[in-house]
């Protein structure tokens, strides 16, 4: 499976990658994006199977990326890993078509719970 990790923090991209491994999801093709624009472009160019995105990023926010993908008919599995979790954000994510919402700090157990139905 090809997984796109979008986060402007290099550290957080590494932690998401490591936590995926710790949760038992090894051997996948991991690609990265350092801002929202890159995330959108890579989503369109590289056709990942899953996008794990930060919410607050330069250029485009994560939810803007998701809305633009859906508006262009792209139905890739897409969800958020973010330290911000308000009811309004969760509602915006759901309305935009998000598949999951993970709050930082997170654990491998939380990743396993969310991604097992998606990655298998």
């Amino acid at each position, binding site marked *: 499976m090809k997984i796109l990790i979008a986060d402007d923090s290099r*550290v957080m991209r590494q932690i998401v990658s490591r936590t995926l491994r710790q949760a038992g999801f090894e051997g996948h093709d991991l690609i990265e994006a350092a801002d929202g624009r890159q995330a959108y472009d890579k989503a369109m160019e590289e056709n990942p199977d899953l996008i794990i995105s930060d919410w607050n990023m330069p250029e485009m926010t994560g939810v803007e990326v998701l809305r633009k993908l859906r508006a262009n008919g792209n139905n890739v599995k897409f969800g958020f890993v973010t*330290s911000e979790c308000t009811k309004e954000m969760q509602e915006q994510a759901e309305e935009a078509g998000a598949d999951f919402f993970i709050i930082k700090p997170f*654990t491998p157990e939380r990743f396993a719970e969310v991604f097992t139905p998606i990655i298998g």
Partner: protein
Amino acid sequence: MSLQYIPTAADLNTIAEQVWSSYLDPEGINPFLPEENVAVDSEIHASVSITGSWHGHVVFASSMAAAKRAAAAFLAMNEDEVSEDDVIDVMGELANIVGGNVKSMLPSGCFVSLPHVVSAPANANHWPAAEKICELTGTWMGEPIAISMWQSESESEGEATQ
């Protein structure tokens, strides 16, 4: 304006516990130890600004030794392999995580900025027209750490409850 709940030092401690158990001390061997009135001779400061229904800043400050240790823990590296960029990135992420969680406790309609990191003593940091409204201090393996909230003065005149 209606009364708002503003997070307290106890809330900051709850967030800190989650950060330590997830990233900095997942095995529970070296927890953050809250301690009142610790003299925090901080050498690096990471902050995010919050605007909207509440205006202010959330600041994560520590000694450089604690920051390097945090970077090593975050990145699963030895402390002597950690670069200055690693330290800055990790401190920024710590401020982002704490600030994001603080935002979740505030009234709706707040926005969190991208993090800003300064490698300088506390007296080199300045948040104009803001006052410190709460602070969590303590130590991590003997090194000082402080997490504080600074509220813009226009917001601090009798509008908030704690």
